[in-house]
């Protein structure tokens, strides 16, 4: 059940990236899809134990590696999203629209 939900989150993200014309919504889609992958790792890690990985707590500890990896992935994701939003803002200033299709049409016509 949880696996299916994670899969659904990932697919919703991809749907947003491709089907939404609005560039901000595309960035949202990327972020959602990214969260899907992060949930995948974190959920898998949570199955390996019942308590936080602190030495000496006695009970079965969760595998700390997926969490550590995803911490890095989240940081990387935030950087990329921030940069993407900057680009969207600059493109909006240039073209006065957030529609990816119109931006592309306008941009590639400038040269040639």
């Amino acid at each position, binding site marked *: 059940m949880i696996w299916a939900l994670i899969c659904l989150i990932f697919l919703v993200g991809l749907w947003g990236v491709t089907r939404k014309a609005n560039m901000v919504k595309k960035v949202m889609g990327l972020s959602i899809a990214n969260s899907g992958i992060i949930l*995948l790792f974190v959920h898998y890690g949570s199955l390996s134990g019942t308590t936080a990985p602190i030495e000496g707590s006695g009970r079965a500890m969760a595998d700390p590696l997926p969490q550590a990896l995803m911490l890095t992935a989240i940081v990387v994701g935030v950087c990329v999203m921030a940069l993407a939003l900057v680009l969207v803002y*600059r493109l909006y200033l240039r073209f006065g629209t957030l529609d990816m299709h119109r931006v592309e049409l306008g941009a590639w016509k400038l040269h040639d």
Partner: protein
Amino acid sequence: MTDSLLVWVLLAPLMGAVASLFGKLIRPLDRPLSWLGVASLAVPIAALVLLLEPVISGKSVRYALGGWPEPYGIALVLDGLSWISCALTTVIAAAVALFSLGRRRYGAGYFFFLLMMVAGMYGVALTGDLFTMFVSFEVVAVAVYVLIAWEGTATGLAASYKYLVLSTTGILFFLFGVFLVYRDLGVLSISLISEGLEASGGVLSSPAMHLALASLCVGIGVRTAFIPFHTWLPEAHAYAPHPISAVLSGAMIKVSLFAMIRIILQFGGDYLLELLMWIGAVTALAAVISALSQSDVKRLLAYHSISQLGYMLAVFGAGSALALTASFSHALNHALFKSLLFLTVGAAVSLTGQRNLYRIPPLGRRLPAFSAAFFAGALSISGIPPFNGFASKGLITAGMKGSPAYPLLWVTSFLTIASFIKLGRIFLPGEDRDGVTAGGGNPGALQTAVVVALGVLCLGTGVFGQTMARGLYRILHGTAPASIPRLFSGGKLLGVLPAAALGAAAYMAVSTDIGSRLSRRVRALAPELRTVLLFFFVGLLAFAAVAY
């Protein structure tokens, strides 16, 4: 002692980047600190030269970061494959950085991102585990997004955004592959994965591993830009600042290709080779047709990058030891001549302010050194002896002997000649028309020196192609080759003539009315983003399904 040299390959450009960043903060020190940043590339050069000796004898140098051994820590691994990858990055990055220093318009902030990108590429080449590879890929990517949009032009921003959306989606597939590997094997280090797979009966024994390998290939494939994942490349490479185009085409796509080759070899994914050979051959042909139909000079070169990448992939798919050498040799040669072409053509574009090759006046008299260097690059990519393209295409022919995909590559070779006959007109000697200077004066001495040096390297690696190939074979396989085919035999030299004639004929055909109408039709073929995502899934399924 030598092992700890390895970490300096990675650290030196990072420190150089920080130095450049201070140059952005302290205005008067902008130039000196940019120079200092670029000078940091001398450290990797020295380290790689010192580390060549253990690598060439077939050992791999390992260094555990922070003293934490695998599987807990991050290990840097330098074997033949990553040595070549690092060397290629170093040569191109140094040339491009020096070229950029010759232009006053790039400040210290630019060099910060350039050096970050270089450090990321070293990371991709040297890393011993999959997750660090992901992080390095993202370091490269973030720097590249900024650099593509550096000049703030509308096209640059749009190209950067498009690349960002596609490659971030691609890297999610990569992460999914990493997840599957971690779930089934419990390790991320590439060498431990290789051992684990061997113990459990190879990658073919479990469907999850097929999917994992396919996802990793799709993720890296988006960065490497072979068909069907190539759609971002023409815009990103064409509308980036010229030196950045040179480093993107010259080094970045190759570093990710090498990463993919390493993963496939270490996973034992031999069943993918035939698919890759066909993808490579189709990529080479389809991209060269697009290239031939372009009228924007930098887009034309960008399509050629995809096409030449197809050659490397196709010959890698042939699978023999010689074929692997041919693939790397072509990658190295392509890095030299393609960055040379982007730098010279970029200079023509910024001198005239025109990108359409029919509107750029002949610049042969105006820029004699650049023209000579451009023709060295153009003859190289067309495979004319004695330049280096001829040498590595000879190796590719030998490596793909008897393969059914070879005819596609042969057609590609004469269409390449045709498109460079088309492009060559901008550097022909012609009457010097004044009043065409839109973007500043002639390039300076440093820039001229860089392009001339690259031109000489193109010639040198061609004339000594045989020695180069032997050296590459030793670095890659750790043993001396049994035999390297003769590159400059009479038959091969004569074989250039029909290709050149066909190339000229193809050029004539394209310049007719029907040809230019067809060109316009081909230019209009630009897949939309949603089609591209469909390509991702189709590619993923193809890579996974080929196991059955």
